[in-house]
């Protein structure tokens, strides 16, 4: 059974000139213990999807279509109180900037203990022991001493470890990690990614890893979903998608990753830019930029077709030459 | 009335960002309307007033303490009633409004002039001069404006012989209020000046033996005009309030030349005998004036704030 199933999810924002869909018809599913990557440019809808799953869409945006199910139970239509109980306990979240994710006037221990006690029935000393244990698991040295220190006394990488501990300490089934390494130094990024992977394997938690960094996906994820202009255009196992992408956009992304090779070339890029949510073209949103554009691409929008493990939304159903 | 602006300038203003913001905000429009009405009333006080309340020959003592015209015992000649000296309240308010506005504007002008000059000086010269100015500014800021104004007032009274107190009152007030409010202007201008000073054209001018000051001012002023305008508007409200408070306390405008605050003080002394109009009407005018200025200042600050665009 899947941990999370998203079906035809659409999130709309009322704007000055009518309603704008931030994401449209998004469907995906995650199995227990799986790491699903979500890639795309800024504004493609990856973070919005994550926010929708955890129920933290900024008003006035709201879900206008589709449904989200956690372990078979529908969660997109729950009351705010019911949703609150799910957050942290069933679904955790990690955000991008560790500097601003932690409350500066509360100790790390306080924040951990409170999260643990909100969701699990433990006494204060038990919760404290759990907190210390989590700090150790995420790799904070001397956790017994550090538990009563404040976030500003930690470095960036250490803070993100604390954030991970906070996300996992109530033992959720699923964690949404929204650009967890983007704000970190490159050297620290690798450590955090490794930590996430290790913890995912250990606890069996499923992870939605939102990022624009293909390298992180390649190292960490099992499957990857590629988003463009508010829709998913391709989903598949990481190795496959990276080496033989079916969607021209994915292919373009792969090609534009600079490689260290014998011939320094002009950097490849995809011409044009991703359309804004209120300026999406008819038919396929990628059409205007696609090197394989056909007549039908400007008329009819391609639907995501295939299996859960390998699907693509493109009128060219044959493979694209790499 | 002189032609202050050509229609093309006005229409250009109207079409600009600020013009749009102005049209959006009803508080801005109402405030401006109110202020224009009040300014006009003050400007044309001699024409609008039914008498000159300071001319004793125009007063009939039998008519003292009359309530407003629409109440029992009122007299249609005295629209808002009269005070204990039979002065027509309506006329007194007009002249008092005039005084309040004159002191307000003059003190703002003084504060702005002083502040801008000191800001330019400090920013341009840097070093000890700048340090000294900023130190004084800091100390000044840590004291409430009213206290400083009172102090300047007290010192002036100590220096001047008592006979001159009444005549000099208006100048003392302008000085006192102006001296307390210059700091914000100074800081803004100083900041801009320090930024400009680093630029190459200033260095070039200095190498050529020309003082960079003149060119700098040319560049600085457009940048600071917006913030200075906002500060001045908010300051105007404060200045009017401070003047009213000082007059109410008895150390401002005297009873022979009463501002709105003085009128309220005079009225307060007779509150218990049931003469409520001498206190209420000047208060209402004062509050409307300050409220309108504050609303306009608030709007102006938001309209000129680049972050909110």
């Amino acid at each position, binding site marked *: 059974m899947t941990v999370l199933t998203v079906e035809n999810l659409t999130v709309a924002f009322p704007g000055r000139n009518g309603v704008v869909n931030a994401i449209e018809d998004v469907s995906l599913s995650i199995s227990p213990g799986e790491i699903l990557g979500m890639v795309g440019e800024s504004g493609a809808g990856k973070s919005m999807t994550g926010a929708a799953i955890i129920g933290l869409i900024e008003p006035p945006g709201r879900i206008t279509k589709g449904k989200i199910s956690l372990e078979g139970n529908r969660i997109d239509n729950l009351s705010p109180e019911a949703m609150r109980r799910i*957050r942290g306990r069933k679904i955790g979240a990690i955000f991008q900037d560790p500097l601003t994710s932690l409350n500066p*006037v509360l100790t790390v221990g306080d924040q951990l203990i409170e999260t643990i006690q*909100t969701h699990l029935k433990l006494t204060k000393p038990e919760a404290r022991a759990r907190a210390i244990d989590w700090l150790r698991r995420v790799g904070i040295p001397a956790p017994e001493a550090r538990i009563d220190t404040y976030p500003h006394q930690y470095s960036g990488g250490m803070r993100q470890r604390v954030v991970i501990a906070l996300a996992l300490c109530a033992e959720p089934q699923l964690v949404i990690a929204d650009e967890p390494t983007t704000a970190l130094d490159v050297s620290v990024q690798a450590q955090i990614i490794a930590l996430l992977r290790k913890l995912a394997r250990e606890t069996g938690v499923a992870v939605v890893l939102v990022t624009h960094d293909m390298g992180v996906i390649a190292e960490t994820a099992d499957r990857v979903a590629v988003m463009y202009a508010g829709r998913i255009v391709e989903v598949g196992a990481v190795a496959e998608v990276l080496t033989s992408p079916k969607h021209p956009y994915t292919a373009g992304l792969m090609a534009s990753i600079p490689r260290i090779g014998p011939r320094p070339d002009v950097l490849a890029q995809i011409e044009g830019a991703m359309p804004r949510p209120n300026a999406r073209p008819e038919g396929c949103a990628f059409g205007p930029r696609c090197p394989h554009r056909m007549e039908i691409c400007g008329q009819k929008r391609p639907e995501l077709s295939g299996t859960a493990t390998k699907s693509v939304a493109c009128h060219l159903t044959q493979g694209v030459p790499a | 009335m002189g032609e202050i602006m050509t229609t093309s300038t006005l229409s250009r203003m109207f079409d600009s960002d600020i013009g749009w913001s102005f049209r959006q905000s009803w508080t801005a429009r109402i405030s401006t309307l109110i202020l224009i009405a009040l300014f006009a009333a003050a400007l044309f006080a001699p024409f609008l007033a039914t008498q000159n309340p300071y001319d004793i020959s125009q007063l009939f003592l039998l008519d003292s303490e009359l309530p407003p015209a629409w109440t029992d015992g009122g007299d249609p000649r005295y629209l808002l009633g009269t005070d204990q000296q039979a002065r027509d309240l309506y006329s007194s308010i007009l002249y008092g409004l005039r005084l309040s506005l004159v002191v307000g504007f003059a003190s703002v002008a003084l504060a702005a002039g002083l502040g801008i000059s000191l800001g330019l000086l400090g920013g341009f010269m840097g070093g000890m001069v700048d340090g000294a100015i900023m130190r004084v500014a800091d100390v000044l800021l840590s004291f409430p404006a009213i206290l400083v104004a009172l102090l300047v007032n*007290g010192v002036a*009274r100590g220096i001047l012989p008592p006979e001159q107190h009444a005549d000099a009152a208006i100048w003392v007030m302008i000085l006192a209020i102006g001296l307390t409010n210059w700091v914000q202007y100074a800081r803004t201008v100083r900041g801009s000046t320090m930024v400009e000073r680093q630029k190459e054209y200033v260095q070039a001018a200095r190498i050529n033996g020309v003082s960079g000051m003149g060119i700098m001012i040319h560049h600085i002023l457009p940048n600071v005009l917006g913030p200075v305008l906002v500060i001045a508007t908010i300051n105007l409200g404060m200045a009017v309030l401070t003047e009213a408070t000082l007059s109410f306390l008895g150390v401002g405008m005297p009873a022979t030349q009463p501002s709105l605050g003085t009128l309220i003080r005079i009225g307060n002394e007779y509150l218990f005998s049931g003469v409520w109009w001498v206190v209420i009407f000047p208060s209402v005018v004062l*509050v409307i004036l300050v409220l309108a200025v504050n609303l306009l200042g608030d709007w102006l600050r938001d309209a000129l704030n680049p972050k909110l665009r």
Partner: protein
Amino acid sequence: MFGFLIRRIIQSVFVMLAVALIAFMMFRFMGDPVNSLVAENATTEERDAVRERLGLDQPMWVQYGRFVGRAATGDFGLSWRNARPVSTLLAERFPATAELVLVAAGLSLLLGIPLGILTALRPNSISAQSLQFLSLIGISLPTFVTGILLILIFSVWLGWLPSFGRGTVIDIGWWSTGFLTLSGLKALILPSFMLCLFQLTLIMRLVRAEMMEVLRTDYIKFAKARGLTNRSINFRHALKNTLIPVITIFGLQLGGLIAFAIVTETVFQWPGMGALFIQAVSFGDVPVMAAYLVLVSLIFVIINTTVDLLYAVLDPRLRVDTAKSAH
């Protein structure tokens, strides 16, 4: 922390010396004290003798030094208006102002903080919007007008509360307090309410702005993502961050209360230092003005330093810790 304290104290001493200089200048250049002590037809020798006795023939800096020395012990000479020692006058009047200011300060916090929180948490509710509007009027209304209105309503028309004086006060040693009698407490109500209004609107707007800002931060978003209760998020996570700048600004504004007490005391004929100061300004009574200036400056300086210290205590980021940070 200790070094910080030392630096602030030194800074404060400099400020006090500057203030003392201003006070000293006031003495020297306003009026001629010799004139008030000798007969009109005194000879030059007699004037010189008096001048020497007062120490006016010494160089300026010596006179300044002596002035500072005397001021430090609280000796400001005699009031020019009623020839009583200035320090005695101030001591008599201090408790009245102190009690008034304390009650007003307390009221402004007690009412301002909850109202501010209310308007922050429910920004579009009717109560919030009317409070916002009222607060805008609040800062436009001259304080004395509010006072007069209060007197009009509660004293003249309703007759519930007294409009002048402190009521019956009880002397405890050097202090005289109005807290212990019913009439004393009743007399405190209107003036302290009037005094607190400006501060109250300020705090309300401040709390609102700060709290709305805090509620937009990432750590609040993260706290929500962890499923913490609304109560905890609003009153534990958000409030603590909100109150830190609020408390410090409140402290800094406390000086304003002492100054506005001048107006309140005039409106309500409250026998405090502020009323004394106004009489001095009216008369040109330099010793009283100078002493008031120095005393109030001292209070401000103490408040400012305390607020700085308090800030360091409340905000853990400012504490210089000996704990090592990890890498």
